C-alpha cells in the first residue's frame, strides 16, 4: 500500500506540477528512513482548548509509522523508538475534532497540544479568524468530520440536527435552512465569504453549495450580523474552506458512499499541496440518486444528480500580502415527486385524501423527468489581504456569480422539455474591509459591500415569468467596535445599506406591455452586545440588534401561479421595509472537558413583517379555481429557546442533548405565523473504544465509535385550522445508528462508516416538508461509506 500511495503521489505530482525531480526526491526519501538510528523520543501533553484542563485517553499516533499511544490522567504521552524523519502526528479524542500536525523529527522532541471539543456540541466557535476575535454572537458549527461522514446530505440537511436550525424541504433533494424561524430573503448564506446569490426567495430552491468543498459550516444565530451584507435579519450561515496547511507534501482524500434508499452513490475527492510559490486545493464531487422510498412505496421521480468542482489557490506575495482565489461550479438536476405536480384546488383536495400519491409506480428508477429543476451556480472570487502593520489589516474581495435555474413542468405537446421557468442571474460583489486592533483587547472594523444583481428571464418558456427581470444595486457600509475590559466585553456595530431596484414587469392584462419600476431603499442596522465572564467557566452574553430589510423583488412583483403549491402568488408594489428587533441572551457553562451546557433565549419582534397571506377570494381561471396568496405586512413576534448539553461518562461514552423551542405569532391579527418550525428534541450517545485494536505490527483499528441518535419532532400545534390546507402532521420520532472506525496501516488512514437512518422504518410526515401534502417522508435507509486519506 505504501508503494501504491507513493506511485499515486508521483502521478499526481506529474499531473499537477512539472517538478518531477521533487517527486522523485519524496519517493526516495521515504525509503531512506529504513536502516536509520531509531531511538528518538517524542513526549508531550494534551489539554482541552477551552478549559486548559489536561485531556486523558487521547489517542496519539504517527501516521507514517503507525506508532502510537494514549495520553494518561495528566494528559501526558510518550512515543519512543522513532526514526528521524518528517511525520504527521494525529491526535484524537472522544467528542473532539481530530488534529493533525506536521513535524520534522531529528532529535528528542516535546510537544504541547490543545484539542477543541467538537463545536457543534458547545456552540462556541470563533468566527472567521483567530482565537481571541472579539465576537460574542451565539453560534454553532459543523466540522469537516461530520461533512465527510454524511456524504448523502446537502448543505442544509447537515445543519438539521443543530439547535435553532430547521429545514424547509420539497421532497428530499431540495431543502433550505431555517434559522430561528427565518429563511430565504431573511437569511444570508455566505459561500467562502461571498453572499450566495440565486433565487433565494423560492421555498423550493436549495442553496447551490457543495458541502464537501467546505471544511466548516458555521451558523451565526446573532441579533444582527452587521459585517455581512445580503439583507439578513440577524442570522447568517457561513461555509468556509480552511487555509491550505503549510506543509510540503501532497495530501488528498477520496470518499465514496452508497445509500440504500434511493440507491445513491456519492463520490468526492480532494487534493491539496502547499508551496511558497502557489498552494492549491481541488475538490470534486459526483452524486447520483434514484427514486427514494417511504416505508411502503417509491417516491417516483425523486432522483438527483450533482457534479461539482472547486478550486482554491493561495499565495503569499510577501509577509504583508496574501492572495487567495476560489472558484467553484455546482451543477444539479433535481427530480420532483411526480404526484406532487398538480393542477388546481380540486386536484390538491384529491391528493390530500389519497393514501399514496398519484403516479406511484412499483419499480425503482434513476430517471428524472419533468417536473424537475436544473440548477447551476458558478462562483469566482479573488481576495487580497494586506497586513499594513501587525494590528492593521486591509481586506479586498471581488467576486462574480452566475446562477442558472431551469424548472420543468409536465406540459402538452412535447413542451415538457422546454423549461417553464428559466432564470439567469449574474451577481458581482465588491468588498473592502479594514480592521485595526488597538490598545489592549480593542478592535475596530470598517467596511463596505457592494452587490450588483442582474436577473433575466428567458422568454423561451412561453409562460409569463413569476419573477420579473431586474437589476438591483446594493451598497452597504458598516463599522464595528469591540472592546474587552476585565471580565466584560462589548461590541457595538452600525450598518447602512442602500438598494436601488430597476424592475421591468410584464402586465397580466392584454395586450401585454412592459411596466417599469424604480425603487430606492435605505436600511439601517445596529448592534449592541455585552458579554460577562461570571467565572472562568461560566459566561453570559446579551445581544440586541435592530435591522431593517426592504421588500425583495418577489415580495413586490411576484405574479402568477406557483405550481408546487397550486396557488396564485401576488406581490404588492407598495410594501414598506420590515423592521426587526432581536434580543438574545446566552448562558454558557464549561466546568470541565467532560461537561458543557449552553442555553440561548431569543426574541425577535417585527414591524411590517412581510408574509404570504391567503386571501378570501378564489381566482377563477380556465384551469379551475385557485387560492390566492398576497404579500402583506403585519406585526409579528418570534420567541425561542435553544438548549444543548454534552457530558462524558467513564471516558468512553459521550452524551448530547439538544432542544429547540420556537413560537411565531402574528401580533396584529393575534394568530400564529404560518410555516414556523415545530419544536424538537434530540439525544445522542456515542460509545468509543479508548484503545486501538492491533491487527498486525503496522496495522490497527482505532477510534471505533458507535453512535445512537434519537430525534423527536413535536407536532406544530401553534397554527389555526384555516391557515393551511390540512392540519400539521403528528409528532414523530426517528432513531439512527452509526458505527465508524479508522483503520491505520503503513501510514494510510482508511475510515469506514455505516449508519442506518430511520432505523425503525417509522412512517411520518414533516410539517416543513411541502411534500407532506402528497406523500410520506423517507423510510429506512442504510448509508455505508469509506474514506481514504493520505
Amino acid at each position, binding site marked *: 500500500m505504501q508503494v501504491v500511495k507513493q506511485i499515486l503521489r508521483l502521478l499526481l505530482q506529474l499531473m499537477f506540477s512539472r517538478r518531477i525531480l521533487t517527486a522523485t526526491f519524496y519517493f526516495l526519501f521515504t525509503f531512506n528512513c529504513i536502516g536509520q538510528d531509531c531511538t528518538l523520543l517524542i513526549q508531550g501533553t494534551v489539554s482541552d482548548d477551552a478549559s486548559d484542563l489536561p485531556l486523558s485517553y487521547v489517542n496519539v499516533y504517527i501516521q507514517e509509522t503507525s506508532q502510537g499511544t494514549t495520553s494518561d490522567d495528566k494528559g501526558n504521552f510518550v512515543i519512543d523508538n522513532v526514526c528521524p524523519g518528517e511525520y504527521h502526528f494525529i491526535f484524537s479524542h472522544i467528542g473532539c475534532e481530530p488534529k493533525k500536525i506536521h513535524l520534522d523529527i531529528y532529535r528528542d522532541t516535546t510537544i504541547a497540544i490543545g484539542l477543541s471539543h467538537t463545536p457543534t456540541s458547545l456552540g462556541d466557535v470563533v468566527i472567521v479568524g483567530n482565537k481571541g476575535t472579539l465576537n460574542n454572537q451565539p453560534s454553532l458549527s459543523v466540522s469537516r468530520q461530520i461533512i465527510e461522514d454524511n456524504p448523502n446530505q446537502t448543505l442544509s440537511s447537515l445543519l438539521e440536527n443543530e439547535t435553532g436550525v430547521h429545514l424547509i424541504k420539497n421532497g428530499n433533494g431540495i431543502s433550505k435552512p431555517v434559522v430561528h424561524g427565518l429563511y430565504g430573503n431573511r437569511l444570508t448564506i455566505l459561500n467562502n465569504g461571498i453572499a450566495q446569490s440565486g433565487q433565494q426567495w423560492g421555498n423550493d430552491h436549495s442553496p447551490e453549495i457543495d458541502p464537501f468543498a467546505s471544511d466548516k459550516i458555521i451558523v451565526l444565530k446573532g441579533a444582527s450580523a452587521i459585517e455581512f451584507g445580503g439583507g439578513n435579519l440577524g442570522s447568517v450561515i457561513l461555509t468556509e474552506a480552511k487555509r491550505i496547511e503549510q506543509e510540503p507534501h501532497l495530501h488528498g482524500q477520496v470518499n465514496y458512499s452508497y445509500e440504500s434508499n434511493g440507491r445513491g452513490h456519492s463520490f468526492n475527492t480532494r487534493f491539496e499541496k502547499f508551496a511558497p510559490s502557489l498552494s492549491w486545493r481541488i475538490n470534486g464531487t459526483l452524486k447520483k440518486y434514484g427514486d427514494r422510498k417511504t416505508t411502503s412505496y417509491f417516491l417516483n421521480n425523486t432522483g438527483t444528480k450533482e457534479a461539482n468542482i472547486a478550486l482554491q489557490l493561495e499565495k503569499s506575495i510577501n509577509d504583508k500580502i496574501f492572495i487567495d482565489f476560489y472558484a467553484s461550479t455546482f451543477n444539479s438536476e433535481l427530480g420532483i415527486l411526480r404526484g406532487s405536480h398538480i393542477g388546481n384546488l380540486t386536484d390538491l383536495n384529491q391528493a390530500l385524501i389519497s393514501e399514496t400519491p398519484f403516479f406511484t409506480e412499483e419499480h425503482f428508477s434513476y430517471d428524472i423527468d419533468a417536473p424537475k429543476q436544473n440548477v447551476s451556480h458558478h462562483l469566482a472570487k479573488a481576495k*487580497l489581504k494586506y497586513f499594513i502593520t501587525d494590528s492593521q489589516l486591509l481586506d479586498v474581495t471581488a467576486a462574480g456569480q452566475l446562477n442558472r435555474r431551469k424548472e420543468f413542468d409536465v406540459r402538452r405537446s412535447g*413542451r415538457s422539455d422546454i423549461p417553464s421557468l428559466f432564470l439567469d442571474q449574474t451577481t458581482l460583489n465588491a468588498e473592502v474591509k479594514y480592521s485595526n486592533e488597538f490598545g489592549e483587547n480593542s478592535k475596530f472594523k470598517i467596511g463596505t459591500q457592494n452587490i450588483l444583481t442582474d436577473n433575466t*428571464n428567458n422568454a423561451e418558456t412561453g409562460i409569463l415569468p413569476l419573477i420579473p427581470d431586474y437589476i438591483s444595486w446594493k451598497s452597504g457600509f458598516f463599522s464595528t467596535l469591540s472592546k474587552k475590559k476585565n471580565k466584560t466585553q462589548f461590541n457595538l456595530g452600525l450598518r447602512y445599506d442602500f438598494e436601488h431596484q430597476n424592475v421591468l414587469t410584464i402586465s397580466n392584462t392584454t395586450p401585454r406591455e412592459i411596466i417599469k419600476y424604480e425603487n430606492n431603499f435605505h436600511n439601517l442596522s445596529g448592534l449592541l452586545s455585552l458579554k460577562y465572564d461570571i467565572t472562568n467557566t461560566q459566561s453570559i452574553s446579551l445581544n440586541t440588534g435592530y435591522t431593517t430589510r426592504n421588500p425583495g423583488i418577489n415580495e413586490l412583483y411576484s405574479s402568477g401561479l406557483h405550481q408546487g403549491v397550486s396557488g*396564485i402568488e401576488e406581490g404588492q408594489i407598495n410594501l414598506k421595509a420590515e423592521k426587526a428587533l432581536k434580543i438574545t441572551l446566552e448562558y454558557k457553562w464549561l466546568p470541565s472537558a467532560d461537561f458543557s451546557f449552553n442555553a440561548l433565549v431569543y426574541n425577535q419582534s417585527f414591524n411590517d413583517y412581510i408574509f404570504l397571506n391567503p386571501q378570501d377570494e378564489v381566482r377563477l381561471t380556465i384551469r*379551475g379555481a385557485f387560492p390566492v396568496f398576497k404579500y402583506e405586512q403585519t406585526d409579528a413576534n418570534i420567541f425561542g429557546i435553544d438548549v444543548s448539553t454534552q457530558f462524558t461518562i467513564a471516558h468512553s461514552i459521550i452524551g448530547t442533548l439538544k432542544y429547540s423551542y420556537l413560537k411565531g405569532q402574528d401580533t396584529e391579527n393575534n394568530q400564529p405565523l404560518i410555516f414556523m418550525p415545530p419544536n424538537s428534541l434530540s439525544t445522542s450517545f456515542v460509545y468509543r473504544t479508548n484503545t486501538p485494536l492491533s491487527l498486525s505490527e503496522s496495522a490497527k483499528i482505532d477510534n471505533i465509535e458507535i453512535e445512537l441518535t434519537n430525534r423527536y419532532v413535536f407536532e406544530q400545534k401553534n397554527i389555526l385550522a384555516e391557515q393551511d390546507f390540512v392540519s400539521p402532521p403528528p409528532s414523530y420520532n426517528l432513531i439512527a445508528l452509526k458505527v465508524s472506525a479508522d483503520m491505520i496501516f503503513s501510514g494510510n488512514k482508511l475510515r469506514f462508516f455505516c449508519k442506518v437512518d430511520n432505523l425503525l422504518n417509522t412512517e411520518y410526515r414533516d410539517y416543513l416538508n411541502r411534500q407532506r401534502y402528497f406523500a410520506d417522508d423517507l423510510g429506512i435507509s442504510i448509508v455505508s461509506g469509506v474514506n481514504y486519506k493520505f
Partner: protein
Amino acid sequence: MQHCCIKNLYLHCTKKIVMFRSSYIITAVLLSMTLFYACDKDEPEIPNEEELITTLNYTLSPMNGGADVELSFVDLDGDGGANPLVTNGTLQANQTYEGTLELLNESESPAENITDEVAAEDLEHQFFFQSNASGVSVSYNDQDSEGNPLGVSSILTTGDATSGSLTITLRHEPNKSASGVSQGNISNAGGETDIEVTFTIDVQ
C-alpha cells in the same frame, strides 16, 4: 447597457491582481461601484404564450332539430388580470344533443386551435363531464387510439325541466384504466387538471 457595466468590473478585477498597491485597488473597486449605478435593465422579451388556453367552447347541437346552444368560457389574458367571461345556456327538456368541444388560444393571432394538440395526444388526455342537474347526463362519442374515451365529441341528454351546473374538466395524464374512468367517472382518474370550467344550465 448592463453588459458593458459587467465588462468594466471584470477589467478592474484583472487589474487588481496585477497591481498590489492598496490605494489602486480601492480606487478600482470604488470606480466599478459607481459604474454599477449607471446601469439600466434591458427591456425583456415578452414570451410567446403558445400553450395558453384562453377559450373553451362547448357547442350543443340538438339531434331532433332546433338551434345550437353555445356554452363558452373566455379568459383572454390568462390567470391574472381581467375576470373570465362565462356564457351559460338554456337547453330543451328531454332532448339529445351532440356536443363538440373546442379549445382555443385567442391571445395569438390568428387564434390557435388547442383541440388539435389535445387530440394528437389523445392517450394522455380525457375530458370529464359532471352535472348536478337531474336528468342531465353526458356520454362519450369518441375514442382514443386504444379505444378509451377522449371526450372532444360527446352526447348530452336532458330530462325534465330543471336547472343546475355542468362542469367540464380536462385531465392531463389521467389513469384511463382505473375503475370507472372510461365511463366518465373522474374520482379515480388522477392526473392533473388542465381545464376545469363550470356552466350554469337551465333545462326548459
